[in-house]
């Protein structure tokens, strides 16, 4: 069907048009903004990313989005759960390249430092047609954004904090009309010697956390080059290494260590002739994970060709093919695999009043076709006045997750007969916006989702083995509100978000809420700014959640508050020296995101940045 539509579209758009010189945009945005009509999207502002610069993507998403991040301790494994789905039900992209581990089928958000990326965008709901494998609960998109710049620039940033934290980063930039370069280097040392209440001991004494040190370093190199009037090249390299002592559960004294090393490279060649754009993408991702003495290596190469008509009257069109070559050498098995996919997206927009998109994708692995994935979305402006507007949004999509290499090949226990996990997601929502001195944006979304053939690893005697057993029905409400206003010299900004999520496992008796799926989650923030001084208060709440099926044990909900103060008035010639002070977990809450995985109490961070 994809190819049929592609063929029709090609005929329709075959008429010659004038050559258009590319605008000077260095970001080749993901298909998020053009073909994701009706979907719930979250794009982070630069100021938020700066506030989280010394922290991980896991912290950012936990504290500021409806995503529940399963954090296994301070700086330990952090895996996302969108709308009650599992960690493997999230697609993660870096500059359009999927970077979930091909053996585990998920990513550890704690070793993705926020400072390594320029943009973070999040999409909610099944969007297999748009983003392919693993986009069941949602997807996260990290990308490089090389801003227009003349000459040299850069910044140096030093953060010191509680429990021995030291973090240093350095970025250098160069730009001219046809070339932009950016280099980043970062180093983070977090001994994590925080104090905690040892609830496993009589008297619940205060203890100092041992064996939880975390070290991370990395290098990034980005390039954007206007190679010819019609051609652009964009390339990025990212090397990241994290060394961790794995924080033991309260009451045990395991001494595990883990080292993760990743090398990622991507090259995009973009050629625009007349109104059509051709994009060639090549990428290489190599991951190495060493757990104690056990070493696992995986790599994947990706090659894709994409053809797009970004703007043809009211229409936009995109079609492409992609091949992925995977190679895994794990402690218990080796495997190779090829995957092929073809996709197509059609967008239509009428004077910003109504827009819809249709997305289609067909995937094949290793030699078999998996179910065809369609996706539909609609934005409809119901009402508009000078300052206010009301939009209706709706989207429907299918999602799919191929069994991971571990699921199929792990020895012992791997199950080669697993079926892909499949999902369908539908959502409707309204967005109200008001501009002016008191601006307001509110969005309310209702979603329903069904995931079948959900894979669970079950203990079988001495081994664990995966099976397609769960059938999960999710539904929920997501509310997101933002507002800003001025009082005299003060600028105020407030935000509030709340999520209700019901996730039922129909395969279980009584179909109770899934483990580690809080029904209630929320976050709120307030920023006040006057001249060069800015103050922010943010908080997040995670509701009660069971640690196992059948609600056999419930972990209490927790609310955490963070405070921040930034002064950006210190300048010397063209040098700016913003100073930032933050108090995390300001009320010193003792809490666990996951059972017996202790999290730090109140901590302080001081950051000084020199920007040229």
């Amino acid at each position: 069907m994809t190819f049929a539509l592609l063929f029709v579209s090609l005929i329709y758009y075959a008429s010659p048009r004038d050559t258009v010189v590319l605008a000077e945009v260095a970001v080749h945005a993901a298909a998020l903004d053009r073909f994701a009509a009706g979907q719930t999207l979250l794009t982070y502002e630069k100021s938020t990313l700066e506030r989280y610069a010394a922290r991980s993507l896991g912290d950012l998403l936990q504290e500021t989005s409806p995503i529940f991040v399963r954090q296994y301790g301070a700086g330990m494994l952090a895996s996302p759960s969108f709308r009650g789905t599992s960690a493997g039900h999230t697609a993660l992209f870096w500059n359009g390249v999927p970077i979930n581990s091909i053996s585990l089928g998920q990513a550890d958000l704690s070793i993705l430092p926020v400072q390594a990326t320029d943009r973070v965008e999040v999409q909610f709901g099944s969007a297999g047609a748009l983003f392919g494998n693993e986009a069941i609960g949602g997807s996260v998109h990290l990308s490089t954004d090389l801003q227009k710049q003349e000459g040299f620039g850069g910044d140096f940033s030093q953060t010191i904090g509680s429990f021995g934290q030291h973090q240093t980063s350095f970025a250098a930039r160069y730009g001219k009309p046809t070339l932009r370069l950016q280099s980043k280097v970062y180093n983070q040392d977090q001994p994590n010697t925080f104090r905690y209440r040892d609830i496993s001991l009589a008297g619940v004494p205060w203890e100092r956390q041992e064996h939880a040190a975390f070290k991370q370093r990395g290098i990034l190199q980005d390039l954007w080059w206007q190679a010819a009037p019609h051609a652009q090249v964009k390339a990025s390299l990212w090397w990241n290494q994290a060394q961790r002592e794995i924080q033991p559960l309260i009451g045990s004294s395991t001494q595990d260590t883990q080292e993760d090393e990743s090398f990622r490279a991507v090259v995009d060649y973009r050629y625009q002739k007349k109104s059509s754009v051709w994009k060639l993408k090549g990428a290489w991702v190599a991951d190495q994970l060493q757990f104690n003495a056990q070493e696992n290596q995986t790599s994947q190469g990706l090659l894709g060709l994409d053809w797009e008509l970004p703007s043809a009257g009211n229409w936009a069109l995109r079609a492409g093919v992609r091949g992925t070559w995977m190679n895994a050498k794990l402690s218990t098995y080796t495997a190779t695999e090829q995957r092929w996919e073809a996709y197509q997206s059609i967008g239509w927009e009428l004077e910003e009043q109504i827009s819809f998109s249709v997305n289609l994708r067909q995937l094949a692995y290793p030699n078999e076709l998996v179910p065809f994935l369609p996706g539909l979305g609609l934005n409809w402006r119901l009402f508009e006045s000078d300052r206010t507007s009301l939009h209706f949004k709706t989207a429907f999509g299918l999602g799919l997750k191929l069994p991971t290499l571990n699921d199929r090949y792990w020895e012992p226990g791997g199950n080669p007969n697993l079926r892909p996990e499949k999902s369908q997601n539908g959502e409707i929502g309204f967005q109200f916006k008001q501009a002016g001195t008191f601006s307001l944006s509110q969005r309310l979304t209702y979603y329903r989702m069904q995931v079948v053939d959900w894979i669970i690893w079950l203990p079988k005697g001495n081994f664990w083995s995966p099976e397609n057993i769960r059938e999960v029905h999710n539904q929920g409400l997501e509310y997101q509100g933002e507002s800003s206003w001025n009082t005299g010299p003060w600028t105020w900004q407030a935000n509030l978000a709340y999520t209700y999520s019901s996730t039922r496992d129909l395969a279980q008796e009584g179909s109770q809420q899934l483990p580690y799926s809080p029904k209630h989650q929320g976050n709120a923030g307030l920023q006040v700014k006057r001249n060069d001084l800015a103050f922010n208060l943010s908080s997040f709440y995670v509701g009660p959640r069971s640690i196992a099926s059948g609600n056999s044990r419930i972990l209490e909900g927790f609310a955490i508050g963070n405070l921040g103060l930034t002064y950006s008035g210190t300048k010397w010639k063209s040098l700016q020296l913003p100073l930032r002070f933050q108090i995390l977990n300001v009320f010193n809450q003792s809490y666990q995101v996951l059972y017996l995985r202790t999290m730090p109490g109140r901590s302080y961070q001081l950051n000084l940045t020199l920007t040229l």
Partner: protein
Amino acid sequence: MIQFRKSILTFFILPLLFVACNPNSDERPRGVYDSGILIVNEGAFGANDGEVTHLDPSTGTLTSALFEKANGRPFAGLLEDLVLEEDRLYLVANTGKVEVVQPGDFKTAGAVNKDLDQPRSLATARGKLFISDYGPYDASYNTPSSYVAVVQGLDGGVVKKKIPVSSKPEDLFTFGSYVFVASSEGKKVEVLDANAVLLSKTLEMPGKPVQFFELNGDLWVFCYDAQKVYFVSISKSGLSQKEIRTFPIAQATGRMALGDKDAIYVLTSSGYPEYRDGISVVNILSGTLVSDWKKGTGFYGIGYDSDRQQVYLANAKGFQGNGEVLFYQKSGAEVGKLTVGRGPSGFLFR
């Protein structure tokens, strides 16, 4: 191993009965959990949510998470064994600790929190605790440094000494000043001198020894390999092997329960990838064998309630949440089932 330690209970209950008849004794009040059945909830790997559930068989009332309810803090470990000796209940966590509680109310009485690796079981002798421990894993997940840890004092404390034993010690049995150790992977029963705190003697076993029990005054140890199970009787005084009774029960696990007379219920499992589990029943003295008395999947623990003459079968239900206990008459008829906490693995009949 988790088991109905009939012998130990006899040792323990008889003096209690005697004391109960003495009007001048300072007998402590009988606690809520001094009767009924304690169900071991091992908990799930990685969650360390082991606990104990109490069942009142007369009313069918279940009380879960006894440790946390009594002490206001989680057990925080994988509960490997529950041992009642010397008027104390020892909760052995294979995640590296032993909690000591009062048997009647589960109030904490002490602990061994340090210097243990993977403790499996415990015995008391001569005022000391003897704790079998796999020791740490090496790079190949073998356990070449297994030991029995010795703690001076019955209410826990620090580990004074580690006596090296063969790989993967499981159950322990005390007779006088001797502590018998079933070193499963090493296929040996090692005898420790509780006074000198030394290894005194080693007995070779035909299979993996995992559990001691007493029958007609004799000490027996249950051993198994891939094809057969072996019941080896040991002279307690001579510290020597007396006889071996062999039965062709293939794919036995290390779990068994002593039923009426000489009946033994043995859990079996075909293992990976099909996991067909079963229960075989042998009468070790008369030599009868009933293979596949029960068949199913998820079997994780077994016990025998001699008061009600019922077999209790624990099903871990994949450790995804609550497990289940099924009750059978000796005839094999199912007489009920109950949903219990996570990973039910054994029973202690009070």
